[in-house]
Structure formats: C-alpha cells, structure tokens
C-alpha cells in the first residue's frame, strides 16, 4: 500500500505550526535586540559588527517564507518541496531502530546534559534547542509513517511530555548553574535571598484556583479537538498488534524484553517505589535542601537523572515510537510492517556453560526422581547463573564498599550502605542485562522455566 507523504490537509495544517514558530521567534528577535548585544560577522562577510538579533531576524524571515509556502502551496501536494530528504530519514531510522544505538544515544544525551550543563542551560541555548526540536517535528510530520505514530491521539501526550521534561530539566540546570556560581563565590543560594513567607490567600490558593480552571479548560479543548482513540471491541482471541501498555508504563513494558515478568513486572516496579521512599533515609548529604544546585549533589542528581532520563523517559519513547508490530523495532520514518521479521536467537547462560563451555549435555531433572533431587539438579544446572547473581548482589556491595564507595560506606554504616548498594545495582541491572543481551545474545542468567523463575 503506497501512501502519499503529503496531502493538502497536512501541508495546510503544518502552516499553522510554522506560524506558531514564526510568532515565537518574532518576539524572541525583539527580546534578543534588547538583551543580546552585538557580534562580529565572519571576515568573509565583511567582519562588521551586527546585533545578534539579526540572526534571529534571519531565521524568522525563513519561517515567514515557510509559513507562506505552506498556506499557499497546499493545493498541489505532489510537487511540494519542503520535505525531509530521504537520506536524512534513512540515517535517523538506522540510528534509532536498534536498541543498542538508541540506548547509546540516550546515554550520550544524558552525559551531554551533565557535562555541558553550563553551556546548555542558558536562555539562548534553550531557545535554540526548542527551535531545533519544533523544526524537527514540523519537518518530520511531512512523513506519512511519522505522522501515523506521532499523530495518534494516544501518543500526543508523550510528545507533550518530551517538551515538558526537556523544559524542566533545562530549568533545573539553569537555576542550579546560577546557585552553583553563587556558591562558588561564597554567596548563599538564590532561594535564600527572598525567603519571606507569603499569604495562603491569595498567593497560593488563588493561583491554584487559576491553574485548576485553566487546566480544566485545556483538557476540555483537548477532549473536543482530539477525539478519543477508540479501537475495536476488546477480544481475547484477537489482540492488537502491537499490544501496548498505557504510555506511562511503556518503560516497564520495555523491561519485559530483557527480564521475566516476575522481575520486570513485580520486583523492579516495587523496588522503584520502595527505593524512592527510602531515598531520604539513605541520603546523608545535608546540602541542596530547598534550593537548586548541581555541584553540591553531583552523585545524587546524576544517578537520579540516569534512572529518569535514559531508563524511564528514554524507554517510554522507545516503547511508544519505536516498538511496532510483533514488538519489533522500527525507525520513526519506517512503515510498521507486520511482515518484518527479526531473528531472536537468545541463549541462556547455563547453555553457554554446559553446551559450549564444557561441551556436555545439560543436566536434566529426572521426572522419576524425588522433588528434592530434581531441585538439586536444576540448581546444579543453573549454578553458574545463580552464583553470578548472588555474587552481583552480595559480593559486589562489599567490593564497592572497599573501593569506589569507601567514603559512602564509611558515612552510611553497613545497613544503609547495603540498601543503597543494592538499589544502585538493581537499577544498573537493566543496562547490564541489555548489554549482555546485545553483546552475547544472553537470554537468562538463571533459567528455571520449570518453576517460572528466570533472571
């Protein structure tokens, strides 16, 4: 089935998206004229001193042309030229449609956020990022497949979520940067400057009321404009392909690719909740309370953001936009073809050990044996994985306490440290398993299908 990438409706609708960007940048240009001062042109262009706002003016002008083109040229979609080039789509598809690449990129983004926080958390950089992402979205919407995924009423909140996550991350770093700079100069955090108490009414409740009304109105408009994405009546004999959890659970669902349901669906979610509750009791760093900072809480923030950005938000994005029929990975510009097939040749650790390592056949529990003896056989069979897992959870914390986390262990005491170390290790278990899967096609470390226990 060949679908046209562009239709008149799409082009016309995109016109409004560009119009919004145009208006935003028009105001930004005015702001830039007031605040940003001047810069020197490269010598090729004469080297004159020009206001920085000129570049924004130029960008706004391009947006004017794009808007005009979309509002006037929509009648002939076949010859409309504002499209993403195919090579670009191909590059993007390849770079995201493999979980390895995708995960590597989310890690890279995470690292970049931490490393370049001073450069990125500025107004101009933030604005450039916003523009880049909206432009990327507008151009990508010219692709039929991208529209199918992103434009699904189900998925609209996730697109919104990405912008919101981006904004608040940016905001927190911006504020943290300010405070870190002040702290370096020996000043107190900004939040400490103006710590007068305010009135519940009107400063709190009135504001809340307004937000409540505004949000309700927004939801009403949303509900009217985007119709409920109803599908066929539920049937146990015919489930949708792909069958996806609600968007906020897609991170958990992604874990199912690597872990057994009892771990990915029960143990890990409970650990996340319990771990979050335990955080105040684990945290021994007294700094950073009630104000934004990064430098004073580098470890805590980095670990949290690692859990939140690549492991939670990143997995939701992957689950929403990249997982297609048969739970295969698809590029964002790729057709969700049910016929696409991926080889899933994964091997258990015990198989590696017995079949490949020792060149023996696997110990098989004999049905005529006693229950105890059968269990013993199974444990014997899975001994390498069991030992490895136990070592990971019991031995590694001690090693950590003796090496990199000596300071932590010393300040936390044994019990707190063990809880902390296990939480960190459980979080690290996901990327660890992912890497094992990608590197060695490892299916399970411990595979006891007889009793539905797989790790």
């Amino acid at each position, binding site marked *: *089935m060949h679908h046209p990438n562009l239709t008149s409706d799409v082009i016309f609708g995109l016109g409004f998206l560009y119009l919004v960007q145009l208006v935003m940048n028009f105001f930004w240009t005015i702001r830039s004229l007031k605040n940003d001062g001047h810069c020197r042109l490269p010598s090729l262009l004469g080297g004159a001193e020009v206001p920085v706002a000129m570049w924004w003016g130029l960008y706004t002008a391009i947006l004017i042309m794009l808007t005009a083109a979309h509002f006037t040229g929509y009648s002939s979609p076949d010859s409309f030229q504002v499209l993403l080039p195919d090579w670009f789509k191909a590059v993007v598809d390849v770079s995201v449609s493999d979980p390895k690449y995708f995960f590597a990129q989310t890690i890279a983004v995470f690292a970049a956020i931490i490393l370049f926080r001073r450069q990125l958390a500025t107004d101009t950089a933030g604005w450039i990022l916003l523009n880049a992402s909206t432009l990327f979205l507008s151009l990508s919407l010219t692709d039929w497949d991208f529209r199918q995924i992103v434009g699904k009423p189900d998925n609209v909140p996730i697109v919104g979520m990405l912008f919101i996550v981006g904004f608040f991350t940016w905001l927190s770093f911006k504020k943290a940067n300010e405070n870190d700079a002040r702290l370096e100069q020996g000043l107190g955090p900004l939040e400490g400057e103006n710590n007068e*108490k305010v009135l519940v009414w009107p400063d709190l409740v009135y504001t809340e009321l307004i937000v409540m009304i*505004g949000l309700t109105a*927004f939801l009403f408009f949303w509900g009217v404009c985007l119709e409920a994405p109803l599908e066929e*009546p539920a049937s146990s004999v015919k489930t949708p*392909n792909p069958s996806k959890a609600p968007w906020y659970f897609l991170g958990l669902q992604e874990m199912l690719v690597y872990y057994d349901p009892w771990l990915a669906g029960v143990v890990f979610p409970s650990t996340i909740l319990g771990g979050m509750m335990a955080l105040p009791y684990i945290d021994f760093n007294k700094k950073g309370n009630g104000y934004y900072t990064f430098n004073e809480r580098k470890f805590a923030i980095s670990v949290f953001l690692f859990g939140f950005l690549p492991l939670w938000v990143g997995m939701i994005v992957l689950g929403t936009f990249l997982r297609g029929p048969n739970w295969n990975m698809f590029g964002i510009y790729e057709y969700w073809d049910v016929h696409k097939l991926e080889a899933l040749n994964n091997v258990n650790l015990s198989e590696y050990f017995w079949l490949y390592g020792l060149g023996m056949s696997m110990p098989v529990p004999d049905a005529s044996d006693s229950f105890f003896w059968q269990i013993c056989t199974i444990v014997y069979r899975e001994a390498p994985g069991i030992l490895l897992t136990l070592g990971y959870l019991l031995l590694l914390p001690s090693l950590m306490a003796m090496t990199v986390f000596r300071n932590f262990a010393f300040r936390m005491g044994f019990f707190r440290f063990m809880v902390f170390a296990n939480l960190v290790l459980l979080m690290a278990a996901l990327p660890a398993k992912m890497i094992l899967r990608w590197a060695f096609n490892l299916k399970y470390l411990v595979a006891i299908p007889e009793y539905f226990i797989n790790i």
Partner: protein
Amino acid sequence: MPATDQYLRNIKKVHVVFCLSAIAFALSTVLILYRDHDDEWRGYQSDFDAIETAVARNAITAAEVEAGGSAEAYTTKSLELKERISSIDSQLATSNKNYSELSSTVAETARLYDLKGRDVRFKRADRDVAKANLDLGIRDAVPADEMDQLTKAFNDAKSIVDTLELEWEQLETRYREEQKELQEITAERDALEAELKAYTAQVARIETALDDIAPGSTLKRFKRGFMELPIIDGFNGHQRVIQDWLPELKITLGMSKTARFDRCRTCHLGIDKFGAGNVPSFPHGETQDSSPTEWVAANEFPHPFSSHPRPDVYLTASSPHPLPEFGCTICHDGQGSATSFHNAQHGPNDPKQAQEWKDEFGYFHNHFWEYPMLPERLRESSCLKCHHEVIELGVNPKFGPTAPKAFEGWQLIQKYGCFGCHEINGFDGHDRIGPDLRLEPTIEELPKYASDPNMVPGKMRKVGPGLKHIAQKSGENWIAYWTEDPQRFRPSTRMPKFFGLSNLKDHAGIEISKVELAGIAQFLSHQSTDIELDSPAANYVPDAERGKESMAKRGCIACHQHADPAFAGGDADFGPDLSLTAQKLLPGQAGFDWVYTWIRDPQRHHPRSRMPNLFLEPVVDAEGKVTEDPAADIAAFLVGNGPKEWPAPEFDESAANDLAELYLSGKLLTAAQFKDFMETRVFPLAREEIKGDEIELVFDGEGAPDENQFRTLMMNYLGRRSISRYGCYGCHDINGFGTSRPIGTALQDWGRKDPSRLALEHVAEFLHHHGEKDGSSTAAFVNDALKKATADAFDSEEEREEAMRTSFFYDSLMHHGRPGFIFQKLRHPRSYDYEKTSTKTYVERLVMPKFPLSDDNIESIATFVLGLVAEPPSEQYVYTPDRRTEDRNQGEILLRKYNCISCHMTDMHEIEVAVSDGDQAMEPTDASAFHGFALEKLLEIRPPSEAWTGRDHRVVVDGEDDQTLPTMKFRGMLMMTPENSPFYDEDDPETWQYSFTTWEPASLTKPGSEEDAGLKLPGSLFVTQQSRIAKLKKAETGGFAEWLVRRSMGDEFNPKAFDDAWQNGPPPLFGEGVKVQTEWLYRFLREPDQIRYLKTGLRMPKFNMSQNEARILANYFAAADGAIYPYEAIPQSDQGYLAEMQELFSKNHAERASENSYLQESWQMLSTTLCIKCHSVGGREFSAAPNDPNVTHAPNLDRVNSRLRPDWLSVWVSNPKWITPYTAMPIPFPKGQKQYNPLFGADAESQTIGVRDALMNYYRLLEKNTEPLPPWRDPAAAAAEQASLN
C-alpha cells in the same frame, strides 16, 4: 519571618489572569455543549418535518378540493357558513331577550354543577379512605369497639357522598333541561355549526396534525424552538433519537454478546412509513432537487428520507421481517447504536461513492468496527444468517427471488463443486449454524457415519465424473492432455485449470508440471478397475443417423449439448457437451462398448451417477431379432469418426527426480535414505509402515525393480501425490482416496475470518503490474475508472458497473478486506504467489485452480461466501418454514439437483398485457357450457388468480396516438410468437403477434368492484401484439420440452403440430400436485413405469434417487399446489358413497336400475367405444388402429385409481382442456349432449360422474367383469352402433 501586607504577585494582574482563565473555561464548556448538540440527525429531522409539512399542506389542498370542488370554493363556503353562524349569533344576542336570559341561567347552572362535582370527588376520596381503613381493620381483626368506630366512619362518609351525588344528579338534570330549552331557540345556528363541522372535518383533521409538525401560532412556535435548545431538548423535546431495542437479536462485540440497539430511524425517518396497500409513502428517487417541497412535488425522496422499497418483505407488520422484531442492522450490518453518518459505518458500493461520502460526510474506512454496513452489491449476504437452506431466497412463490445474488452464488458453488475442497459445514454438532454444503460420505466413510449419531452427513455429490474405471474409457495421453487445460478440449467445461497458471511459469514450474501431468495420467489409469461392459447384439448394425434422431428424442439434449446442427438451440449444460466425446475414447470396440454400457446403465459405471437410466431397451421383433437398439445407435453417433491420437506426455527425468526429492527427502525419508533409494530403487520402508501415497513406491516383485519398473512406480507415486496435493478427489471418485479430507480452507465461517489472517503477500504488486484480462494493470484500470466515474464518461451503465465492481473489490483488497481477497482469489487464484515462487519450493506453491467464472459470477459467489458467518441468531429468528413450505423448498432443490426442470415445466409463462374493451384477453369464458359440478371442482383445486394487475402500460404504436391502458396478467403457454409466426413482419415490430393459452382460471373482476366480470377458464386462447405486452416472463423450466416442440413442429407455428408435439414431449408439471396421489408419485419416482407410449419413444427415466429424496419430491408437488398430502381419502370407493350413489341412481334412472347396479352402469360407460378407442381398459390391450401414427396411445386405465386424485379426475373427465389445453383427449360427455343412450338415460353429467366412479373402483369392477371386453371394432361400425343407440 512574619507575612507582610504585600502580596507576592500583583493582585490586579492575577485578577486579569483569573478572568481570562474563567473566560477560557466558559468557552470550553460552551464548545462542549455545542459539539454535543451539533448532531447530523437534528438537521435530518428538521428536513423531514419540512417534508411532512409539505405533504400535509398538499393533503389539505386535496381535502379542500374534495370537499368543495376547488380550494377557493371551499374557503368561500366555509366562510359563508361561519358568517351565517355569527349573524344568527348577533341576531340572537340583540333581538332575543329570552335567549340572553336563558343562556346566563345555563351558564350559572353549569358553574354550580362543576362546583358540586368538586365536592363529590373530595368526599368520595374521604369515603374511600374510610372503606380502606375498615378493610384493614377486618384483616387485622381489631377489637370490636374500634371496629364499630371504623364502620361508623365509613357509613358516615358514605351517606355524605350519597347525598352529594344525588344533588349533583339533580343539577345535571336541571342543566340538561335548561339547555334543551336554549337549543330550541338556537336550533338554526346549531344545525349550521354541525354542517360546518362536517364540511371542514377532513381539513381540520389534517390541520391538527400539521399543527404538531409546523405550529401555526407564535407561542407554539416559540415553545417548539425553545424545546430544541441544548439541555432543554432533553426534557421531551420533539427532536430525539429514535431507537429500536432488540434484546433477542444479540450482537457480538469482542468477547460479549449484547442486545442490539438500532438508532437508524433517527435519520431514516420515512423508512417505515407506508400507505394503504403497503405502498411506500416516500418512494426513493435519486433526485437532484434539494428542497423538501420539490421532493414532495416530484414524489421522489432521497436518502435518508425515503421509505423501504420492499414493504411486502421487510418492516411492515404483515411482512416476515417486522421492524420491531428485526430492526435494521441484523440485515444491513453497521453500527446500529451510532447516530452519525460516519459512525453508523455506511458501506460505499464503490470507491467513487466513498469519495462522494468523504466529501459530504467525512466518510473514511474504519477497520476497527467489525461489522461495517454491507455495500449494496454484497447486501444479500446477510440473508444467510437465518436462511440456511438458501432456496427460498431464490425461488419463492410469494415474494419472488428476494436475494437473487446470494442464491446465484449458492448455485454456482454447487455447479462448480467448491465444497469438494472447501467444506461448508452447516452444523455444529446437531445445531444448524448456516448453509450446509458438504460432500456426501463416500462408501468408505459410511460406517463412520453409521456409528456416530452426532455426525450429520453431507448431501452433495461430487461434481466431476467418477474415475474409478477411467482406463476403460480413455487413454493416458488424453488424460494428460485434458488435465493440462480442460477448456482447450471442451470450452464449456466446469473443470478448472490447474496448470500453466501464473505461479507455474518459471522453469521449475513448467518442467515439474509436465511430470505431474504424466504422473496423474499414469496413476489414474493404474488405479482404474474394470467393470463389465455390454455390447449390442452380435448381428446388430448400429445406425448413427438413427442414433442422432434418438439422441434428440430420447431426452439426451435435456442435459447435454452437441455441436451437430441437428441439436441447434439445445443449450442445456447440466451434463457435458458431447460434441467431442469420440475423441477422448479408447479406439475400436472398447470405446464403443464403454459408451454403449454407460448409456444403457449409468449406475454400473458410477453407483451415484446423476445420469438417469433412460430405458433405452433394444426393440426385438417376434423372432427375437433386435430391430432397433437406440443405445447402440446413439453410441454409434457419438463415436462417429472415432477417437483421436493424443500426444504422449513428455517430461524431463531430472524434473521427476526433483519432484520426488521435494516430496520425500527430509520428510518421510531422510536425505541420505532418499539418495540411497534412488540408487538401489528399494524403498526403505515396508508396506505396513506407510500410511500415505508412498505406498505406490513399494515394489511387489522379487528383489529390486528394474529401471522401467522403477520409473513406473515412481510415476504412479508422483501422480498419486499430485492428486493428493491438488485434491482431485474432491470432485472425482478415485480408488484409494475414499477417506481423504478436502484440502481447502473450510468456509462455514469465512465471512468472519480475521482479515489479518488473509495471506495477501505481494498481490498489491501483482495488481500494480497485471490483473486485467488482457494482462494490463488493475491498479491503472481502477485509477482510470475512478476518473471516468468522476467525469461521468462511461458509455453504458453496464460498463460503469463492470468498472465500479473491479474498483470496489480492488479497493477492498487494498484495505485488506475479505471481499477483495475472495474476488481476487477467484479471478487470479495464483496471484497471491506473485514474486513468491523464488522462495517457495514447487510443492509449497498455491494450488487453487482457475475456474471459468465471469466477474459477475465471482461477485455472486463472494456474496454467498461472505454471508457464511456461523453466527446463527436465536432460534426464533432462524427461518423455519412450516412443513408444507419446507417440502416445497426441499423439492425445489431436488428439481435442480436432478435437472427435472429441463424436461418438465413447473412454472408457466407469464404474460402481462395492456387491454382495452373488446380485447380477447378480457373476454370471460362462457361457464354455462360446462358441467357445474366440474367447474366447482376446478375452482376448488385451482383457485382463480387475479387478472387485473392495477398497473398501467403505455402502448406506443407508430402513427397512432399513444395510449395508457390497464394491464392484465395470465399464466399459461406462449404459442405463436414472432419467431414462429407466419405473419412475422420485420418492419413493424409493434404489431408482432403473440398467441397465448391460459393454464389456470383467472378472475376478470376488478379488485374492489361489485360487478362480477366472470372468469377466464384455463385453455382460453387470446392473441395480442408486441406493443401491448407490458411484461413477458418466460418460464425458467422445461427448456428441453420446448426445444423438442420447436424441433418437431418446425419453424412455423401450426396449432395441430404444436399440440401433437406437446403430446409427445415431457408434460408440464404445472398443477401436478392436485393431479396425482402423493403415494403413487413416490413409487413412480423410485421405479417409473411407462404410462404413455409416445411417438418420440421418450419416457420417464429412472433417477438415482434416495428414498428420502423421492419422498420429498413427491411431497413437493402436493405442497406447491396446496393439495392434501401425504395421505388423502378416496371417498368414491367408500361403501357409504357407493350406496348413496346407488340410491340416487335408482331414483333418477329407475329404468336402468332394474338392469344394472350403479357401478355396473358406470363400467359399461367406461367400456363404451369412446374410452377404449385410446385407452387400454379391462385387460384388453389397446390396439386401436395399431398402425395409425396419428392415434395417440393414451395411458392404460388400470392405474388410475391409485394414481389420480378423484377431484382432479372429475375435472379431467369433464373437460381435459382445462387441465392440459393441448391434450388429444376430447370432452367425452359435453354438457347437453345426449349420447350413449340408454346409459344413465344419456345424461352427460351422470355419465361423467359415473366414469369417474368406475375408474376409482376399477379393480372392484374387474373382479365382477371377468369376461374380456369385446375386441376393438372399426370406427365406422362403432359409429353405426352409436347411431342405433341414439
């Protein structure tokens, strides 16, 4: 730090923000309300109000015209009456003092009466309370003192009421008296008022109705507008969702069954509005007008306002599908609970319509709804949910064909035998779930069915000929040639093409196909067993010319065709075309004997053959010499120039080895075993270890087979394996395949098959490059068709329909729809293998063959298959006919199964002609010329039809004024037509003449008319012209009989030749049910004896019919004609009846009674010279003028009493032409003629009855009259004798 007086934010700005958010909130709420209220159906309801207003206004005008002659006159007259009333009123008020006094008194009394009425009601309520308290007291057995109080309270209250009621009554009496007094004064005015009321009653009634739809007063209009406002409209507003709740007609949604809600009538407001006589109130029309008044003026209404076109079948209370019980979506599908065009899931009939709907209603294809509304072209498929026997959808005496397309699909499936591979199991255990089309059990399977009572056996016979003895008929070369492309040998064959199709065009495909063809041919010969073949008498020399004649006359052409000019016009396709039969036979005597035996005794070759035994017995002369052997003659004709040489199939050895490897290596044998086997030629498995076709590879001889033997074994194996793979045994009986299962997908629930499970593969690519008949791209064709449709550039409606059909199914396929899949599957069965052959081995490729079907056929089959949903509704909805209808339906199926309808007309021609005064068609028959009792009986067994249709026909003749005339309808036989008319004038088609004989009584009285216009009795002939014929519906049955008549009569119509030809052909079975006794018919169908000796030699053949089938067929005729069955009384042979007749006879014919008993007198009647001229009577073989070819040999009368029904016999004996207008039998005893004196005193009526009774007591009389009848005498002598008698 304490809070300051400062606010954190600028409170004024916060107020502004609050205000803005509140406005946004208010706007969003308004938007929700607006969107909630903005329903499409409100607009339709307003439009429909406008339609009904316009209709009512028209009706008012019509009523005014009816009352006053014209609208103006009506207004004038009613105004005048009103004025006169008011002038009298004013006169009374001013001049009559008495009147004003009296009227005020009356008013005062009325006021007092009302007042008293209030009192009465209040006190009655008190009394009722007291009564209830008393009752409660009694129930609770309260103490005596309390009881007394209660009784007293009741008595008191009662006496008050009694008093008041009395006073009230008095006031009423007073009021009446006073009013009477007043009426004396106002008598004149009251009379005028009554007159006015009567005059305006009709108009006022419609005006009141109109006032509800379009209120006249401002207040009412305001109220109506107010009630349309959002929210307010929830309080019983006049615009509302109209829904039909169908709790028993459940719909399956995902996992649950839930009651059906159909809200279709919310927009389709006129759908169930019908006028008197079930005439649609809002007939549909694709009108271009856009305003309701214009629709009303044109009496054509667009969707969704129009009424249902078939009120006789749907929606009305008198129809079989009344609206409150059936709703809409059980038939139409779609989402009944929806109230918008799109959500109702309307189904476009073609992509052009889809585009129009998209523009108009925002339609789009929504694959989430499981039951989209059926497009018009597939609409009939939903009938199959309840109509599991299907036949009633195509053959229905009451409603006509109601679902002809689904019916045609069902017939095509039977014709081409789709169920041979695709089982359509109509049963889930013993529960009926849909139409049942399954093969009947093979002989090998019978024990399984016999032992399991839960298995319902199938009923279908394999459609192809049995091949168990094929080696006796044809050689291997021909088999291979035929199988490769059956249509190449016989273009009209039903056998599909398996080879040379699109997925076999590659090298492997071509080479291995050759191996398969050779293998199939060899295996079929190898499995063949011999039957004993007969030969004609040794010294008999068959005569091919005579054989040709016999073939035409003995009924072969009823089922077969032959290209010889002698059979021109015979177009039967029930059996194969016989033109080239000779070419496929074995050479020499073998081939001849095979044909001879087959014709003589078809069952010998195939025990369940549908070819009947035609009783082609040799004629033997007195010396025992065969003088004529029709079977041998026919065989000689068919064998003709003898068989043809066919090329031996050629193939490449290595291709055969490749195929063997594909089948064996890695499957039953390992690769190494296979390699070893090919070298040693010894199959590694023993015979007992093999269950499948590999049994053929086991060598029975000593040691290893030599190369030739091995080659034979291998080819037998590959042939057998190919037969398994292609499922040949689905249509043909082949030895060794008795228990093989059908190879294809079962279809009983295919109509609900999950579309995601349809293997579309690269069919889109295929259609992008190929797909049309000339090999061009279907995608391009559809694209072009849509452009043409938009530009309205088609040359004809047929061309448009063809193009739109292809477009519809293409579009469906592109949306992964079932309709598109099946259409493509039948059009290009192997196209789903397009570009797949490179990754599939030969034996994995699709094997569905290509049938010779037109797109039209395919659409019919698709309609049927898509209706197979295996979702039977609750029991009360499943079509369960009464016994009579059931027998009729099942009989119709059998009539087609055995092709009875080719020889016998079961329906007659139907003609609808425009008539004007003086036309022959309008002339009643003079009933007084016939015996009264016979006419009575005739009308009893054949109730007259209504001749007047109530329709008009416009008669256009060049050079004359056009005239519109009423039409009459008759059933009977078309005799002279332009084609056989000697007056055939090619230049002037309007004056072409037709003559027509009626076959059933018709009442000429106009419906509703008081005047009796008489009857047109059967056998009446009339002539009419082409221009007068409004409709001519030729009988769909009896094609062979008519062909034989045409052949015998010649091209020119000649009444005598026509009658003679019919007398010697298969008789029409019109009214057979009232003619023959059901029991006799049953026996006759099982074992037909020869009733009449026709000059054509034709006789009823013996069909291979089961007992049950014969029973159903015998019942069918009685059921169809409304006769009593299966048992009927024959009172004429009862003792009581005979005693009564004897008494009557003694009374009326005293002089004869002394000589003869009643029955004996009747016997003498029967054996007069008249009857025995043509019939064999009393053991005397009919031998009248034995050599005279012009004398018809009538049936022997000995079987009459067991064969014929007495009422029918009465009619027949009294006037045979009423039953069979062409019969040679004269009216034996015409009314008023004195013959055969002194028998019955020469009273014709008594003689008629006497003959009937004699026939019904035939054997009783034979016992008494053991003396043989006198021999036949010369007619002249007989005439002399009769003269002397007279």
